[in-house]
């Protein structure tokens, strides 16, 4: 899938970079603070910890991995900062859309909190112990460490500002296909985007994690299949709508979703999407150049080029009809703006 010519009516193709830089600064600060604060607290415990400390537990509850406490703190701090860096790079390089900046910011904060939680729940029960082999890890710790950082992550994601309106600076290309509509006639194109291996992969992942949690009798681990069920339920089907307001893609669950206003549409076309090669997987995805993909299967897809250097791909049948109507409503939004 290639975009041979980028429409030239984009008034601010680079404006997102400053917004991405700002959002990623905040995300780094919050995520980094969580990890570094936990490392500082753990460092202050060094005198009270056994040497070596338990660093890994087997399914049965007895520790089966040990390391020097000082190096464990450093390894965790490095892991946290490394994960944050990965998300910050994604947000800085590909954060053309606000949704991507939100995901990247939430990812850095969650990583920082997750690593901080792992470090503290690993070391806290070992304070005052003479022998680390006695160390017990509370069963609920894993669930809390996994879920709790979602709260600051969600808050930071909500604080990342939405994209401001950015109407296109010129008309849609003359040779783009249109849906002929009479004056006053209204039209809507509705279609469901489904298919692909998402449902099967989700079922297997949920089943395996649930069976594992039950088999190991680590009930707190049941939080994993629950989180996965929520994730796959939100990702397995989307409704796609083109009407006077523009393009709306929304999970049948109601979230996540996105809207491309008609006056921000530069052009739409039918493309062949390859989810794995272009987006590294299925579902709501970030592709090269910050292209947002709602890719549930390989094959026919609607590509929408949007102002602000943004673009969106949705795998949906009958994409040509959607593209033509989108051009028509984009024309109408331009005509309305001239009045």
């Amino acid at each position, binding site marked *: 899938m290639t975009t041979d010519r980028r429409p030239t009516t984009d008034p601010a193709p680079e404006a997102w970079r400053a917004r991405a830089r700002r959002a990623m600064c905040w995300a780094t600060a919050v995520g980094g603070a969580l990890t570094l604060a936990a490392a500082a607290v753990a460092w202050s415990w060094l005198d009270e910890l056994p040497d070596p400390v338990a660093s890994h537990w087997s399914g049965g509850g007895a520790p089966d991995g040990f390391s020097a406490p000082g190096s464990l703190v450093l390894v965790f701090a490095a892991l946290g900062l490394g994960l944050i860096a990965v998300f910050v790079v994604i947000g800085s390089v590909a954060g053309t859309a606000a949704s991507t900046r939100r995901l990247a910011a939430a990812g850095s904060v969650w990583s920082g909190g997750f690593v901080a939680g792992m470090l503290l729940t690993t070391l806290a029960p070992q304070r005052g112990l003479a022998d680390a082999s006695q160390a017990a890890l509370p069963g609920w710790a894993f669930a809390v460490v996994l879920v709790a950082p979602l709260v600051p992550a969600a808050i930071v994601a909500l604080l990342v500002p939405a994209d401001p309106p950015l109407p296109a600076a010129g008309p849609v290309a003359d040779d783009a296909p249109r*849906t002929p*509509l*009479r*004056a*006053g*006639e*209204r*039209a*809507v*194109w*509705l*279609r*469901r985007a489904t298919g692909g291996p998402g449902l099967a992969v989700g079922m297997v992942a949920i089943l395996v994690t649930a069976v594992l949690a039950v088999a190991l009798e680590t009930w707190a681990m049941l939080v994993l299949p629950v989180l996965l069920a929520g994730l796959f339920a939100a990702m397995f089907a989307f*409704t796609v*709508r083109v*009407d*006077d307001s523009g393009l709306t893609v929304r999970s049948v669950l109601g979230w996540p979703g996105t809207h491309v206003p008609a006056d921000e549409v530069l052009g739409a076309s039918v493309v062949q999407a390859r989810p794995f090669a272009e987006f590294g997987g299925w579902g709501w995805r970030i592709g090269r150049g910050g292209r947002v993909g709602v890719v549930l299967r390989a094959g026919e897809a609607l590509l929408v080029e949007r102002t602000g250097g943004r673009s969106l791909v949705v795998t949906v049948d*009958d994409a040509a*009809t959607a593209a033509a*109507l989108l051009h028509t409503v984009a024309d109408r939004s331009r005509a309305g703006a001239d009045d």
Partner: protein
Amino acid sequence: MLWRIDPGADEPLYAQLVGQVRLAVARGELAAGERLPAARELAASLDLNAHTVLKAYQALRDDGLIELRRGRGAVVTAAGEDLSLVERALADLVAAARRAGLSAETTTTLVKEAMHR
């Protein structure tokens, strides 16, 4: 599928929707088992009253084209047929009507009359 509404046309709004579903089923664009959009969603997108859409869905149900199920919405029941012969003949008819200078209304009346014979 593409839904369109022309408030300026003589045909009632609900009848315009009925005609489009009928055509889409006949052409095979809507297959049996496929679900029509929720009345509220379709109404909002086309700036219609939800009752207008419901009236159209009820008319389609009475025709046996769709089934209305509580909780599942409107589901297409009828299967499409091959219309290629009719469409080819239609193209000839339209060309002939244009040559004769007939309006769309007159042509439609002629077709209706012929079918009632």
